[in-house]
């Protein structure tokens, strides 16, 4: 009997679990960045002064992996200009001034699907991306599963929502179990050749008892759907951890996910996909959990993508001046530069922390306590990574880094969270992984000469 990976109890702070999502009044304007997905930025196809309607395509795919962007309010395009992003780079953003009418575009109608290819095309055109955080284009993920080398027998539907505070997936499951069911049926129907015999495992943490109940009722008569209950432990939602805990299979770094016989998709992505296929309405709005120590009334809000964070905070109210605002969860989310930044497709939460919680203690010397390694879900020798990174000789450094197992890092930040010296261990792991990737590429190049 294998032992489940269990890492860490992080305080849940799921204050909004009981909060019915509330639709906000149409914001006066939205800002839609071109990089709301992983891969290449989308390319605007509208001009300043154009009138656009809800669901209308305003930016097309550009490059190999990309995703289109749709207008989320009706109104006039007033600006197409670069804005700073959290990564430090700039991206083009389209600003639309709302006319308040929320007129739906004529192009919004259910896509015509006949086969797998047209299904993937539809998912592609709907701008559906992984809403769990990585924002990987969903069609590309499905497309991988059609590779004849892989035999996918399990579809993991990621409903763990293991990060503190966030309850948007939870509330979505309570409100729209039908969309989850539709999503599963679409996959079974149009990807029958590849997923026809697959088991659909909805992986959900036990702290969402009401959602588990709803899902169990919804799928009571479907033997190919399993509600897989997971312990409420961080990081259950990391795909490698989920794969291991739900199927016992080990994800090896450097291999594509379907090669482990499984596909993984976030539960909200699946529901948004079903919604698009049902109605033709792409991702134009989403549930956002607004919480954090600076927030007066934590709430779940339904807001158009591109709504400024400040608009949401106006509705929930602020107890104090926020010192830090995060889009996403506190373990993996992105800190933003300004309260006027927009919410993006993956913005499952907006967390505003007061000045006291905004700054973490300064890092100090490693005391070799070993907690980083003890709490690492995949048992990386975390403390050795930093030591290896100081080696001068590149070949030796690469060898030492590989020995630490850092390539298996799932980016969960548990090591960093428990470190008594508050060292930036996750950052060091990222540096190490980036180095190894570059090193491997160089080696390959050198070999070809």
């Amino acid at each position, binding site marked *: 009997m294998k032992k489940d990976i269990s890492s860490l109890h992080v305080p849940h702070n799921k204050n909004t679990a009981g909060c019915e999502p509330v639709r906000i009044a149409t914001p006066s304007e939205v800002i839609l960045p071109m990089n709301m997905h992983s891969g290449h930025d989308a390319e605007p196809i509208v001009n300043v002064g154009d009138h656009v309607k809800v669901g209308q395509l305003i930016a097309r795919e550009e490059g190999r992996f990309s995703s289109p962007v749709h207008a989320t309010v009706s109104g006039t395009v007033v600006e197409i200009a670069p804005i700073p992003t959290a990564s430090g780079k700039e991206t083009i953003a389209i600003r639309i001034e709302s006319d308040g009418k929320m007129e739906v575009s004529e192009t919004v109608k259910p896509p015509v699907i006949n086969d797998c290819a047209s299904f993937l095309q539809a998912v592609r055109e709907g701008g559906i991306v992984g809403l769990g955080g990585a924002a990987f284009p969903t069609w590309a993920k499905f497309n991988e599963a059609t590779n004849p080398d892989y035999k996918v027998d399990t579809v993991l539907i990621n409903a763990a929502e293991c990060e503190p505070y966030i309850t948007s997936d939870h509330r979505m499951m309570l409100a729209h179990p039908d969309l989850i069911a539709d999503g599963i049926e679409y996959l079974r129907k149009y990807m029958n050749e590849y997923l026809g015999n697959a088991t659909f495992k909805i992986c959900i943490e036990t702290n969402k008892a009401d959602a588990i109940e709803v899902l169990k009722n919804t799928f009571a008569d479907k033997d190919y759907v399993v509600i897989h209950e997971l312990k409420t432990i961080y990081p259950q939602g990391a795909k490698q951890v989920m794969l291991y805990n739900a199927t016992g299979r080990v994800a090896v770094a450097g291999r594509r996910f379907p090669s482990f016989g499984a596909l993984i998709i976030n539960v909200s992505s699946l529901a948004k996909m079903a919604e698009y296929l049902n109605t033709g309405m792409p991702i134009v709005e989403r549930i956002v959990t607004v919480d954090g120590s600076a927030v007066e009334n934590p709430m779940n809000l339904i807001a158009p993508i591109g709504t400024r964070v400040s608009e949401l905070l106006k509705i929930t109210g602020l107890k104090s001046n926020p010192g830090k605002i995060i889009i996403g969860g506190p373990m993996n*989310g992105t800190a933003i530069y300004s309260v006027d930044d927009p919410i993006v497709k993956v913005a499952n939460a907006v967390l505003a922390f007061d000045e006291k919680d905004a700054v973490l203690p300064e890092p100090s010397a490693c005391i070799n306590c070993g907690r980083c390694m003890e709490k690492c879900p995949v048992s990386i020798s975390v403390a050795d990574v930093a030591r290896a990174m100081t080696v001068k000789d590149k070949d030796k450094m690469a060898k030492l880094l590989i020995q630490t197992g850092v390539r298996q890092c799932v980016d969960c930040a548990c090591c960093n969270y428990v470190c008594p010296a508050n060292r930036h261990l996750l950052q060091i792991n990222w540096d190490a992984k980036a180095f190894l990737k570059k090193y491997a590429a160089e080696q390959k190049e050198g070999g070809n000469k």
Partner: protein
Amino acid sequence: MANLHVSSTPHIHQKGSSTRNIMLDVVIALIPATIAGVVIFGLSALWVILACVASAVLAEYVFNLCCKRKQTIGDLSAVVTGLLLALNLRADVPIWQCVVGSVFAIIVVKCFFGGLGKNIANPAITARVFMLLTFATTVGGGAAPVADLTASASPLVTLNQGAEAASSISLLTLFLGTHAGAIGETCVIALLLGFAYLVIRKVIKWYVPASFVATVFVCYFLFGGFDVVYSLQHVLAGGLLLGAIFMATDYVTTPATNLGRVVFCIGAGLLTFAIRSFGAYPEGVSIAILTMNLLTPFIADWTKNKTLGGVR
């Protein structure tokens, strides 16, 4: 609105997790043994403790000042070093010798190697061994407890005189600690209280010191004629518990994985038995731990975690 802080993930940190809090927990865990030491050995024990702690902290402060380094006395590690050194000394050690030992521990053993986290040997233990060699007449052996000035020989010495002499030592005396020895090593009950506190606070794993103590016990049981009482006397007399609970669990100078720490402790247990049985000194814990400190990098290399899905 004011400027926002922007930083990399994670944005939260485990509450109460800091080097200072770990050191504070160790200090708290040492309080019962400290009090017991003062009660058993009198006020002179208190002077030794104060001298060691004060000079350790001052030494680190001055060193950081001279080297223009960031001040680190706030992490309380110097307090732990000073306190541990004091508890390893007799109550009648001259104060100037305490100061020399403390300064040696902090400056030579810790700061010269790069400060907390970089030292390869436990500062308190190394300083004690240094003092044992330098001030052999005053540091070796044990001071008599104030209540009973006649029993001046440390029970370890008595134990080594043979089975007959050993029968004169009662287990109750060992538990209460009312016998000759170093300030903090004699009172077993106080040490076990500290042990329980550290385990509850998750600073140490119970099986790490336990493997040290068990190794020593098993050795004496196997080679001492399968005598439970005799083996227990060896475990409880001398510095074994103090060393096992507080020094063999020092994060910095032991391997980082729990498996590595157990290997470390078994090695230290075997060495303790060997030194006590065949060496010139009645006590072997300090030298055993110090030796294992030097082997730590190798043990750490052999006992690394196996990464899930990783290639070794």
